[in-house]
C-alpha cells in the first residue's frame, strides 16, 4: 500500500527523445495485408533508419460486432459465436462462455464433464501454442518448424473431429456440461497423442532452443518488464515470461484445475526468447495436466440440470479463464430474459497488443516482426 504514482511504471508513451542525427523520420505502413502481421493488423511505424521510434496499431478490420450479436441471441445460440473470436483456441473461448453462464444460472457441470473440458482445453492450448510456434519461427525465417507443428497439431484436430465433428471452431461444450459423451476410444486416442507428442516438443526445441541464430534473434528483443506488463494489463505467457508467476488456473481455479498438479513456468528477462521458453514449458505442463485428467477420468453424467429455456435471474457476472493467450474474461449482464442484456468479452489479444508499442521502441524493424509473432495475437479476437 506504499505504492505511489511515481513508481507505477516509467512508461513513456509520448514522443521519445530526438535522435542524434537529425535525419528524416521515415513513416512506414505495415499491413493490413502483410504476411507477418498474422491477419489484418495494420502497424504504422515511425523509423529512424531501421530503428523504431514508435508505432501505432490500426485495428478493427475484422470487427464483426460479436458483443452486439450476443445481445440478440439466446444464451445457447450465442455459444457457437464465441468460437469465432480466437479461432485458434476455440475450445477455450467456449469454456469461458459456458462457465460464465453457468455462474449466472448457478449450476455446475458434473465431474466427468469437467474432466473432459480440461482435457479438450489443454489440448487446445497445445494446438494454439503449436500454431504460434510455427508462425513465429516462420517470421524469424525458420520455415521448418511450421511444418512440424502443423503435422502434430493435426493429431489434436483429429481428436476434436472425432469428438464433435468440427476441427477448428469446435463448439465442444454446452452450458451445463458437454453435448456429447466421449466417443469410444477417446481416452486411448488422448493417451496415444500424449505419448506421440512428448518427444515432439524435444524435436521443436532441438531445432530452435540452442540454435545460435534463433537465440540471437530473440534474446533481448522486445523485452518488457513485469511492472510494465501489469501496468498495461498484459496477461498470459507474456506476463509470465517477465517473471510474474501468475496463472488464472492457479490464482482463481476454474473447471477443476485445482485437482491437477502442474507448475507455472516463468521467465526472467521478459524478452522474446523467454516467452518462447515459457510457451514451450507450458506445452509440457499441458501434457502433464491432460495425462492426470485422462488417467482419472470419472464416470457419470455429462450434463448438469439446466432448463431447456435459459432465463438466468437478473444480475451480472464477470468470469475469466486462462486462455492460451492470457486472461479471457466474459462480463454478462442478465435481465432475466432468454437473451443476455449485455455480453462483454475481455480479449487477451486485444489488451496484449497494446504492449507492442512499448516492446518495439528502440528495436529494429526486423524485431517488430519477431515481437508481433511473440505476442501471439489472433486478429479475430482483437477485433471481435
Amino acid at each position, binding site marked *: 500500500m506504499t505504492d505511489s504514482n511515481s513508481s507505477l511504471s516509467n512508461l513513456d508513451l509520448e514522443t521519445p527523445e530526438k535522435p542524434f542525427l537529425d535525419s528524416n523520420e521515415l513513416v512506414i505502413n505495415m499491413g493490413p495485408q502483410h504476411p507477418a502481421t498474422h491477419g489484418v493488423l495494420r502497424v504504422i511505424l515511425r523509423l529512424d533508419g531501421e530503428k523504431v521510434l514508435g508505432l501505432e496499431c490500426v485495428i*478493427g478490420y475484422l470487427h464483426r460486432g460479436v458483443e452486439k450479436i450476443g445481445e440478440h441471441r439466446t444464451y445457447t445460440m450465442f455459444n457457437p459465436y464465441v468460437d469465432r473470436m480466437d479461432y485458434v483456441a476455440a475450445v477455450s473461448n467456449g469454456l469461458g462462455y459456458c462457465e460464465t453462464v453457468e455462474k449466472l444460472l448457478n449450476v455446475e457441470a458434473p465431474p466427468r464433464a469437467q474432466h473432459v473440458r480440461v482435457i479438450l482445453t489443454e489440448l487446445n492450448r497445445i494446438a494454439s501454442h503449436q500454431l504460434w510456434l510455427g508462425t513465429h519461427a516462420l517470421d524469424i525465417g525458420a520455415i521448418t518448424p511450421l511444418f512440424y507443428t502443423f503435422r502434430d497439431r493435426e493429431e489434436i484436430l483429429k481428436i476434436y473431429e472425432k469428438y464433435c465433428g468440427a476441427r477448428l471452431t469446435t463448439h465442444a461444450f454446452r452450458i451445463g456440461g458437454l453435448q456429447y459423451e466421449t466417443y469410444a476410444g477417446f481416452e486411448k486416442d488422448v493417451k496415444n497423442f500424449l505419448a506421440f507428442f512428448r518427444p515432439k516438443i524435444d524435436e521443436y526445441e532441438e531445432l530452435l532452443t540452442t540454435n545460435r541464430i534463433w537465440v540471437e534473434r530473440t534474446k533481448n528483443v522486445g523485452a518488457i518488464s513485469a511492472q510494465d506488463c501489469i501496468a498495461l*494489463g498484459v496477461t498470459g505467457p507474456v506476463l509470465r515470461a517477465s517473471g510474474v508467476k501468475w496463472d488464472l488456473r492457479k490464482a482463481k481455479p476454474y473447471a477443476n484445475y485445482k485437482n491437477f498438479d502442474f507448475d507455472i513456468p516463468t521467465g526472467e528477462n521478459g524478452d522474446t526468447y523467454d516467452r518462447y521458453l515459457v510457451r514451450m514449458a507450458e506445452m509440457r505442463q499441458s501434457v502433464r495436466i491432460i495425462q492426470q485428467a485422462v488417467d482419472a477420468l470419472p464416470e457419470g453424467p455429462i450434463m448438469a440440470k439446466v432448463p431447456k429455456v435459459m432465463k438466468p435471474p437478473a444480475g*451480472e457476472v*464477470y468470469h475469466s479463464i486462462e486462455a492460451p493467450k492470457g486472461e479471457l474474461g466474459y462480463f454478462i449482464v442478465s435481465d432475466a430474459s432468454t437473451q443476455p442484456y449485455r455480453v462483454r468479452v475481455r480479449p487477451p489479444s486485444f489488451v496484449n497488443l497494446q504492449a507492442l508499442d512499448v516492446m518495439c521502441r528502440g528495436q529494429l524493424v526486423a524485431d517488430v516482426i519477431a515481437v508481433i509473432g511473440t505476442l501471439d495475437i489472433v486478429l479475430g479476437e482483437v477485433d471481435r
Partner: protein
Amino acid sequence: MIAKLKAGYGSGIEPLSYAGQNYMVVDRSLIPEILLVLRNEEQFDFCVDITAVHYPQREKQFDVVWVLYSFARNERIRVKTQILDGESLPSSVPIWPGANWLEREVFDMFGIKFDGHPDLKRILLPEDWKGHPLRKDYGILQQDNEWVQINLGIESGQ
C-alpha cells in the same frame, strides 16, 4: 475492504454482491478518487477491463464498469458508476496505462467520453463512422450506409 471504503465515503458507495462476486456502485463524483485509492492503497494494480452497459429507460443511461484485480491480494473487484448520456468521465490512463485501448473501445461503442485520455478516437470502427453500435437504440442490422457507400463503393454492406 469494501466496508472500509464504505466507512470512508458513506453514501457514495453501495456495496453489492452477486453469484459470490463483489462489486460496488460508486457515485460519479467519487470515481476519480476511488479508482486512485484502489490503485494506490488497496493494490489493485491491474485494470482487467473497462466496459459499459446501456439502459435507455433509465435517466442515467450508462453503467460504466471497471474490473480490477490485485496481484498481491489475488482479489477481483468491479467498480460501477452510472452516468448520463453525454456526460464524460475522467480517464484512468494515468492510473493504469493499459486502460488506453479499453477506454477507446468504450468511446467507440457507446460514445462515452473520457477526459484526459491521450488519444481518444475510435478504435474498431472507422474514424468517421456515425453512431455507437453497442447502444440499445442502435439496431443490429443498422449501419452507416453513407460511409459504406462512400468508402467501399457498394450500396450496402448487408
